């Protein structure tokens, strides 16, 4: 953190305390946090909320950790707000400052029961409305919630809480859908939601008036599970978050743990990890192309994409043993050395893929219908993208240079030459083109690295029991569809005290409402396809 901020923040907010452990962060009491947040946003220029993590600090109470970034200067700051009240924890909302906080605060409410004052929509995000208790609290009792087989009724209203000057809380009822509105339900089982996401959409004819996102149909409670697993064991779960970014997810977690341990990984490992990440990105973007085409009704292009994706999977499988879930990265290295054929096969793949991409453009990109449907629909502005924290292709299509590989270079990305693909339109077509161009850039990165993989060990010898020193750590990689971050809070144990994954998908679905309002149902499908979320990554 910049020294300026070390001075400025205590000036702005005398109650703020600096603690050095790990990444270092400021601690602010909940009631003072709102003022600091406003000043940080307006005067400090911290316009991007990277991550918001709800926390249960036991004796110290509940609270949240905010990772903020200034997108113009690239400065980062970590602030935490703490409330000692364990009965009725309250925090001020920041969802009006950073709109991406809206879903994250609902998540924190869902996990910890922290109510955010003035938040417009204080419902549970992942769990059922009739869920008892808050699962990520340290004193949660799982026996309270047996499997309920009754159908859930979708509520048409939501609650918000106002804090009165005398300390009492007033509960407001906000209507989402009126009685007379024609509400259709898209998902959880629907071919276009890419998994089990659910939208409730209010229609007027074919035009979308309102959209309400329901998540949690694949909420697997990975973060809670991680608290009971040793660090090497937690690695197994990240691959299954965003299964199209398995390699990158695990890379992020390994990086975060290595950061906590202070381990330097050998250069060979860095090379291998970078190449694997890029292969994974190609795989993911090919799948994106296929699924988008399928959603738009061009079924043949879907098969083309899948045909070529198999070739990438072959390479991944040969070295890692897994097609989709590779479990390849480990703490301090990778599981096994690359296959002797690896280099040759990767080169063949690149030689094959270049002309194939041209074929894609001929089959789909150049098509009149595809262009008509994608251009100008679902526009996300740059400001909205930053405010929602919609990183990855979606953010870059809106003109926001949000690539973690450029912002905070890791592995070999600082040393290779590649372009960050940027568009300014922010519509579906721009989002589509960003991905297609990124495949080319990924190939460029791989080409620069593949011939120069240095000799050396593929793994650093680690201690049998890994303990991270006390403190909090955050590391992020550019996943296939945006910034994937891992936040670890350690108390020096074998197990993480809290492990949070900054999901790439959650900000993307949170901006769905804004993008698709006023569009048609068919556009919603195109928007969902181009925004390119993976549902298990949203729900974790």
């Amino acid at each position, binding site marked *: 953190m910049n020294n300026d901020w070390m001075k400025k923040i205590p000036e702005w907010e005398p109650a703020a305390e600096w603690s050095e452990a790990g990444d270092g962060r400021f601690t602010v009491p909940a009631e003072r946090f709102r003022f600091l947040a406003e000043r940080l946003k307006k005067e400090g220029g911290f316009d991007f909320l990277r991550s918001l993590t709800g926390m249960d600090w036991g004796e110290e109470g509940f609270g949240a950790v905010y990772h903020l970034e200034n997108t113009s200067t690239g400065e980062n700051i970590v602030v935490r707000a703490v409330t000692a009240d364990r009965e009725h924890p309250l925090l001020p909302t920041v969802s009006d400052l950073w709109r991406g906080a809206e879903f994250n605060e609902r998540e924190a409410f869902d996990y910890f029961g922290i109510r955010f004052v003035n938040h417009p929509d204080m419902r549970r995000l992942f769990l059922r409305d009739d869920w008892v208790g808050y699962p990520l609290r340290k004193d949660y009792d799982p026996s309270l919630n047996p499997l309920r087989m009754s159908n859930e009724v979708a509520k048409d209203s939501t609650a918000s809480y106002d804090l009165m000057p005398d300390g009492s809380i007033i509960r407001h009822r906000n209507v989402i859908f009126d009685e007379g509105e024609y509400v*259709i339900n898209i998902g959880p089982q629907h071919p276009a939601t890419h998994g089990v996401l659910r939208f409730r959409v209010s229609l007027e004819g074919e035009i979308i008036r309102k959209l309400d996102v329901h998540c949690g149909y694949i909420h697997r409670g990975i973060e809670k599970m991680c608290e009971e697993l040793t660090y090497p064991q937690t690695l197994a779960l990240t691959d299954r978050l965003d299964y199209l970014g398995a390699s990158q997810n695990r890379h992020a977690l390994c990086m975060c743990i290595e950061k906590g341990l202070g381990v330097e990984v050998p250069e060979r490992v860095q090379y291998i990890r970078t190449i694997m990440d890029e292969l994974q990105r190609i795989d993911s973007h090919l799948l994106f192309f296929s699924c988008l085409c399928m959603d738009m009704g*061009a079924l*043949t292009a879907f*098969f083309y994409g899948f*045909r070529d994706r198999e070739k990438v999977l072959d390479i991944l499988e040969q070295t890692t043993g897994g097609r989709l879930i590779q479990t390849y990265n480990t703490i301090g290295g990778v599981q096994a050395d690359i296959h002797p054929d690896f280099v040759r096969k990767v080169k063949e793949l690149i030689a094959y893929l270049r002309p194939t991409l041209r074929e894609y453009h001929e*089959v*789909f990109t150049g098509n009149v219908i595809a262009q008509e449907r994608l251009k100008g629909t679902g526009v996300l502005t740059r400001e909205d993208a930053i405010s929602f924290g919609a990183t990855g292709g979606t953010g870059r299509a809106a003109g926001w240079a949000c690539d973690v590989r450029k912002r905070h270079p890791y592995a070999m990305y600082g040393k290779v030459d590649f372009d960050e693909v940027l568009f300014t339109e922010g519509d579906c077509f721009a989002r589509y083109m960003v991905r297609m161009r990124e495949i080319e850039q990924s190939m460029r990165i791989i080409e620069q690295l593949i011939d120069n993989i240095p000799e050396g060990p593929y793994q650093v010898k680690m201690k049998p029991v890994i303990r991270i020193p006390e403190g909090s750590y955050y590391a992020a990689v550019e996943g296939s569809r945006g910034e994937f971050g891992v936040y670890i809070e350690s108390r020096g144990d074998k197990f993480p005290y809290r492990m949070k994954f900054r999901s790439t998908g959650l900000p993307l679905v949170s901006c769905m409402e804004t993008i698709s309002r006023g569009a*048609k149902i*068919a556009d919603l499908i195109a928007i969902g396809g181009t925004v390119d979320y993976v549902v298990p990554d949203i729900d974790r």
Partner: protein
Amino acid sequence: MFDFSVITSWIHALLTSWMPEGLAVFIECVLVGVCLLLMYAVIAIVMIFMERKVCAAFQCRLGPMRVGPWGTVQVLCDVIKMLTKEIITIRHSDRFLYNLAPYIVILASVLAFACLPVSRGLEVLDFNVGVFFLMAASSIGVVGILLAGWSSNNKYSLIGAMRSGAQMISYELSIGLSILTIVVLTDTMQFSEIVERQADGWFLFKGHLPALIAFVIYLIAGNAEVNRGPFDLPEAESELTAGYHTEYSGMHFGLFYVAEFVNLFIVSGVAATIFLGGWMPLHISGWEGFNTVMDYIPGFVWFFAKAFFVVWLLMWIKWTFPRLRVDQILTLEWKYLVPIGLVNLLLMVIVVVFKLHF
């Protein structure tokens, strides 16, 4: 060229020789009906099989392979499966209309199917306003689809039905205009007559420019009329799960499924009849030897070859293009196809009046 009316009149003579005329006609009607339905079923099976193989070929796959040689009996399995599947009764639906809808769709499709002249002397419904009858009969189908969507008490179905209502009724217009263009050229509405007049050249060539425009418009509108991609909005898989037939299961769904494919065949058959000469062999004036050789190929072979060629063309389009959006579909129809169709009709009138056609 073999004339099938020899056989039919022989059967008629045989029957009337030992029973009263009325009974004979009745038996003939039943016989024709049975043959028609049989042919309908066979065509449906062939079409479904063809669809699977063609789409597999476009998609670098093989399609059905294991059931019978090259998967030829696959569709039979599907039929057996469909027949033995439960037909679900839906709560809070209009049960009478719900059960009626698939039959209306099938009825419309069979009626239209009966209009197609398969070979010389093999016409079931052939009278002086055949073209009108075909269009009237085929547009009953939309009623069935609307009823299906409305009576199933499902919002997806309703949206699908509304879309198909808007779409099919609009595109009916373009179909009508493009067929009218040819009627202007032939001055008859009887299908057998239309085919006869193409003995010295198919209308696609005889009517040159306006006929070509009409043919293209007909293909686009015909594709939209049978709800196939890129106009498959009413059942848009990725948007409305299955559109108007979301709630239908078992054979009721099977009827919709079959009707869709046979309708595609009917559209292609009509295109073949009107533009490509129907069962009339390819004749080039002046080449007597060539014409005689062509005449040896039976008429129904010509008809099916032409019809399936058009079917293949439409399948190619379906598997290549992405789906349109509902407002784009209506824009295409009302802002482009209808005005072009009207101008084209006028052009054809000029061509006919000044005898500019071949």
